[in-house]
């Protein structure tokens, strides 16, 4: 039965999503229903992780079509959970649960009567993320990519106002990205005749690396670069995430781009295993250069903003550069660092967007000057902000420090010094970005106004949640060595 866990992790939120659309728009019922299901999902994901840890990589054939006896190709669609997939699956489940709970307090303000549809998409998105994480079929990944995109479009667009145009740009870029990915899969298919990633990898390894493969790689990577929002292809992201409803961005922002990173890791490490470092060194230089540029650009974009949510959204663009660069350093430490940064960044982004919710709920705005006096009004929120900012600056012993240190180690070892410089400059940029916010919160005490209403309980709760998530970054940081050794190193084959 434990073999079925892998499909349950995907089907459970899927089923929840479909059923949710039929339920009435009752806030209390929905909170209960959603959190129960997400707790169950967390349990399943944890069980899957345990299963994978104890018994090794799990391969699951949906619909029971085992490999074809004649040429040992996979007839059906396979799911695969190696140890990092299991970990990531747990991460997705946990982020979804926390994001869900953090978003509840914004429902009255931003969701209203659309609650069933909103939550249906929320769960479908979680299912698609799980699917992206666990699928072992190149085409199925495309389908998952599109479900996650479609759900995201809906979830972002209902924010209203400027969210519509932002969503439209997202749709155009997202569709082009997914289509590029599809072209890449097509190029692989025409040369190999299979779609299963394991079979594809075997087939690629057995053939000469010809033009079509290089192109396939190029299109897969370009497609994912669009999804990851790396610098010149990023412009859809800040607006989309900023104008999205808070309950949406708290789920989408931490996970969406990270899963694109994970897919890129799979393409580099599972699909083109061993091919990249040998033949495409010049490429990797170009990509790392792009990543370095993206890091700097993302950070400076973020510096120019005054809206908290936009500041954080622009940071996602920079963070994507970290991971992209790490994956392409052609050094195993870089890849390990990138994957660890993925985990760390997902948690950090979650905390940041929870902070946005807390700020919005407790002071009613999210502009830089709205933060004024937050230190007195909601110390937990500021604590969360401070903790996350240390993480993003890279202050030990936060997780961010260790991911950065590992990335830097990889970069120094492989001689990509421009990446080192970009990382360090970005850290200093983050210092400026965050201390600008913290200064406003810390140095401008509010004048006690007449009739100042009591602090909203919702804001306090969201602040506490954010602080808890931010604190977990330090736990992750302190156990970083174990996480890297146990969950990441075994799957990096470079």
């Amino acid at each position: 039965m434990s073999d079925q866990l892998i499909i349950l992790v995907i089907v459970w939120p899927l089923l929840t999503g479909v059923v949710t659309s039929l339920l009435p728009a009752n806030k209390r019922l929905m909170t209960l229903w959603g959190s129960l299901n997400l707790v169950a999902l967390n349990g399943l994901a944890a069980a899957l992780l345990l299963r994978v840890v104890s018994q090794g990589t799990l391969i699951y054939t949906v619909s029971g079509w085992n490999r074809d006896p004649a040429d040992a190709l996979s007839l059906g669609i396979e799911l695969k959970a190696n140890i990092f997939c299991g970990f990531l699956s747990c991460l997705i489940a946990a982020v979804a649960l926390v994001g869900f709970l953090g978003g509840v307090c914004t429902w009255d303000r931003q969701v209203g009567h659309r609650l069933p549809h909103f939550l249906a998409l929320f769960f479908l998105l979680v299912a698609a993320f799980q699917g992206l994480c666990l699928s072992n079929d190149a085409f199925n990944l495309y389908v998952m990519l599109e479900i996650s995109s479609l759900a995201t479009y809906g979830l972002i667009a209902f924010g209203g106002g400027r969210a519509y145009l932002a969503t439209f740009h997202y749709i155009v870029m997202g569709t082009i990205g997914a289509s590029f990915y599809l072209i890449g899969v097509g190029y692989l298919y025409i040369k190999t005749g299979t779609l299963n990633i394991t079979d594809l990898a075997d087939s690629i390894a057995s053939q000469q690396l010809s033009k079509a493969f290089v192109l396939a790689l190029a299109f897969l990577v370009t497609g994912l670069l669009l999804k990851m929002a790396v610098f010149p292809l990023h412009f859809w992201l800040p607006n989309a995430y900023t104008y999205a409803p808070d309950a949406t961005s708290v789920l989408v922002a931490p996970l969406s781009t990270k899963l694109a990173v994970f897919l890129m890791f799979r393409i580099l490490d599972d699909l083109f295993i061993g091919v990249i470092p040998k033949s495409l060194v010049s490429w990797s230089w170009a990509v790392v250069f792009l990543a370095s540029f993206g890091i700097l650009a993302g950070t400076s974009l973020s510096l120019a903003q005054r809206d908290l949510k936009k500041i954080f959204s622009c940071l996602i663009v920079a963070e994507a550069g970290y991971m992209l660069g790490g994956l392409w350093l052609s050094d195993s430490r870089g890849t390990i660092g990138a994957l660890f940064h993925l985990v760390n960044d997902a948690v950090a982004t979650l905390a940041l967007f929870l902070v946005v919710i807390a700020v919005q709920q407790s002071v009613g705005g999210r502009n830089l000057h709205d933060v004024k006096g937050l230190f007195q009004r909601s110390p937990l929120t500021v604590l969360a902000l401070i903790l996350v900012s240390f993480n993003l600056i890279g202050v030990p012993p936060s997780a961010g420090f260790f991911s950065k240190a590992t990335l830097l180690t990889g970069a120094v070892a492989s001689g990509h010094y421009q990446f080192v410089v970009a990382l360090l400059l970005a850290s200093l940029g983050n210092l400026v970005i965050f201390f600008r916010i913290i200064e406003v919160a810390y140095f401008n005490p509010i004048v006690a106004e007449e009739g100042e209403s009591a602090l909203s309980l919702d804001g306090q709760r969201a602040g506490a949640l954010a602080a808890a998530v931010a604190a977990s970054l330090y736990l992750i940081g302190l156990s970083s060595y174990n996480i890297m050794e146990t969950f990441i190193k075994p799957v990096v084959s470079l």
Partner: protein
Amino acid sequence: MRGLAILCAIVVGGILLWGSTDFPAWGRLDSPASVNLSDQYIEHAFEETHVPNLVSAILADYRNYDTMFETTVVFTACTAIFLILRLPLGPLARHRNTTHVQAARQRLPRDPILEMACRVLFPPTHLFGLYVLTHGHYSPGGGFQAGVILGASFILLAIGFDLRAILARFPEGLFVPMTALGVLLYIGTGVLCLVLGGNFLDYEALRVLAPGISKEMIRSHGILIVESGVTLTVGSVIFAIYANLVSRGNQMEGL
């Protein structure tokens, strides 16, 4: 922007063309795509599933996991459109829109010929949709196609009469749950297989319920079940999307 677009298009196109010179010749029998997996499907799919339409067999059996998510894609899109467009209906809005529609009626008189033609066309279209669904095993067709035809039949009515008229007979409370029910039918089948001891969507596990049927035939029936789910979802989603798009989400006035 235009220059950038031309540059993009030319670069992408050029690269693609350059890469396609590496492809096997078009239509070659020994190209990798034609020999590696597809011959297995062609030669064995029928004996394994009893479905002569290989596309249906692969779609709803070998790669039915993809198809499940494909149905989910449709459902997701429908939910997203609802989330974006659907407006709440207060009693006041209902009243205002009723009068508005009456006013529109006066301006655009009903056309009996058009209405009658739609009325007459409606049942055969439905029937054809069901035929495409059930005969999808043997001829071009299947759940998606059938769903689109069914959905189109409702859209035809909505165009011939107006949206309110069709919504009175086929109300939102009916077709919106149907979008979910179709997906549920599909996923439910999968979960049932799981419960009965097989892998997810492994129809063979259903033989526990119907022991007399051969394992090929049970796959064939399983395909029919999930295709019905697809039809249900696609048909209602098509109409739901139409109803929301033409009425800007208030589902009152039609085009």
